[in-house]
């Protein structure tokens, strides 16, 4: 009877499509990226092996320094500003009874939408002539500000758009963890006279530390690979001030045909994400398993 589930032909029929697609679209590109990252290659002529030249070139390029700093701004903005806000909102939602479902549903909406459409939408909001922010400021007599065209503002404008898109998603992640904590722990503390802020700080927060770690690690990964929102809103401008590692990678490869260089940037991005995650894991992110 067991032979039915030992039929190799059937097994192959089910497994092969995945193995082939996976090999073709994951493993092969992965290995070829690593290979070409060490070459000078324009996509037409044979690739020339140049050792670590692409990597030294990247790290001595001023434009790439700006990009690294911008990726770091994404990271710092989300970890220092967004994460505390996210935790507070998640705590607030977990504590209300009325409208809890409504809040949950609403805050999640931006994270299911296309980043490019959100970029267009916020381009409209930021428009200096007819955007609502300009109209609002005009009411107070403030001259229109070119949010996306002034190097002083462009990066901040993108960071806010990005936050608008993702904060709700993380709120829901943390909220789910809070709601999974057994209620009697909280009730016992309340009976013992702990106030709501005390319970949040001494009880809930330590219990959701693992999921906060997850949020921080997702933020690291997200901040390193960010690219769509920049391409759509400013395409790196004005004067390269909003360029991120991903946008340089895409433009160098597709626009200028520097494919070998582009692939070395892909590896640098991956390495940044890996190293930052490891640093976080070894310092603040250490968590023990929690049993209720």
């Amino acid at each position, binding site marked *: 009877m067991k032979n039915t*589930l030992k039929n190799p032909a*059937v097994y192959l029929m089910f497994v092969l499509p995945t193995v082939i697609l996976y090999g*073709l679209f994951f493993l092969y590109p992965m290995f070829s990226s690593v290979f070409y990252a060490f070459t000078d290659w324009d*996509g037409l002529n044979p690739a020339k092996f140049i050792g670590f030249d692409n990597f030294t070139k990247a790290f001595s390029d001023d434009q790439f320094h700006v990009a690294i700093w911008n990726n770091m701004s994404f990271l710092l903005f989300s970890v220092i500003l967004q994460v505390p806000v996210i935790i507070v909102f998640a705590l607030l939602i977990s504590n209300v009874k009325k409208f809890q479902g409504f809040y949950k549903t609403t805050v999640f909406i931006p994270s299911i939408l*296309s980043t490019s459409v959100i970029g267009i939408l916020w381009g409209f909001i930021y428009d200096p002539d007819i955007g609502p922010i300009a109209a609002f400021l005009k009411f107070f007599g403030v001259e229109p500000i070119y949010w996306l065209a002034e190097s002083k503002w462009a990066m901040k404008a993108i960071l806010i758009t990005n936050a608008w898109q993702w904060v709700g998603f993380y709120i829901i992640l943390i909220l789910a963890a809070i709601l999974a904590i057994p209620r009697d722990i909280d009730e016992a503390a309340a009976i013992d006279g702990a106030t709501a802020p005390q319970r949040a700080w001494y009880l809930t927060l330590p219990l959701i530390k693992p999921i906060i770690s997850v949020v921080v690690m997702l933020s690291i990964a997200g901040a390193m690979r960010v690219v769509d929102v920049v391409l759509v809103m400013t395409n790196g401008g004005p004067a390269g001030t909003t360029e991120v590692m991903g946008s340089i990678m*895409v433009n160098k490869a597709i626009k200028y045909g520097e494919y070998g260089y582009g692939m070395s940037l892909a*590896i640098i*991005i991956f390495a940044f994400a890996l190293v930052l995650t490891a640093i976080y894991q070894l310092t603040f992110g250490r968590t023990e398993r929690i049993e209720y």
Partner: protein
Amino acid sequence: MPRTLRKSLPHIVLMAYVVIILFPFVFVVFSSLKESNVEISQAPFALPKSLYFENYAKAWTQAKIDKYFVNSAYIGVSSAVIGVLIAAGTSFALTRMKFRNSSKIVYQTILFSMLIPANGLFIAQYFLVSDLHIIGTHWALFWPYTAGALPFSVLLISAFMKSLPNELEEAAIIDGLSAVGLFARIVLPLTLPALVTVFIINFLGNWNEYLLANFFISKDALRTLPTGMVGFRDAYQMNYALVSTGIVFSVLPVLILYAFLQKQIIEGITAGSVKG
């Protein structure tokens, strides 16, 4: 603090946040029903003077939103359907069939890919689709989308199939079902909730994807909504009423889907990210 204030303070803060989330949408819907930039700039926060639905007809045909919409819809749906079926078949073989060792290797390799950021493979995939001579066609999106969704799909569906009771398949086999019959008539129907979740997550991912769609497709008639919308904005920069209409067309299907299936969508997307 008085009791009523303490009770309503969280709601005041949360409502303020909800307004920040919803305001851009309301603003866009209003603007899409206004006649021109002049009307938007004169009264940006006011209701439209008269409901100017012409924008919708104009955007749909003149701005080719209809084409983008159809392209997005059929690539998004077909790739998600094929991806779910392939992933379900593989998950069945990995979790229910008796090839322990090879299943373990396949599963671990797939798990490993969750570490790789998708954008990192972008350039290599560009060459791959060039070499396969599918660049510039919808296949250049269909295959990477289908393949890209497989790891998450296999992991999620496998987790679900593992939990099915053994007795069920024993009974089915005694009754004379083949492995394929067992898969199609017993396991697939029982796994339906997981399949629906995976389908929606993959569909949303395809519907929203920008990077590949932008660089692997150059013909305007073949563009999908996210890239078509950017081209549309650049062409109609001056007409924000029309751009707003385009945004409504692209966001509405997602919101309708969300209205009906928000539980699966929220669970699926958060599960996908945490495992990744």
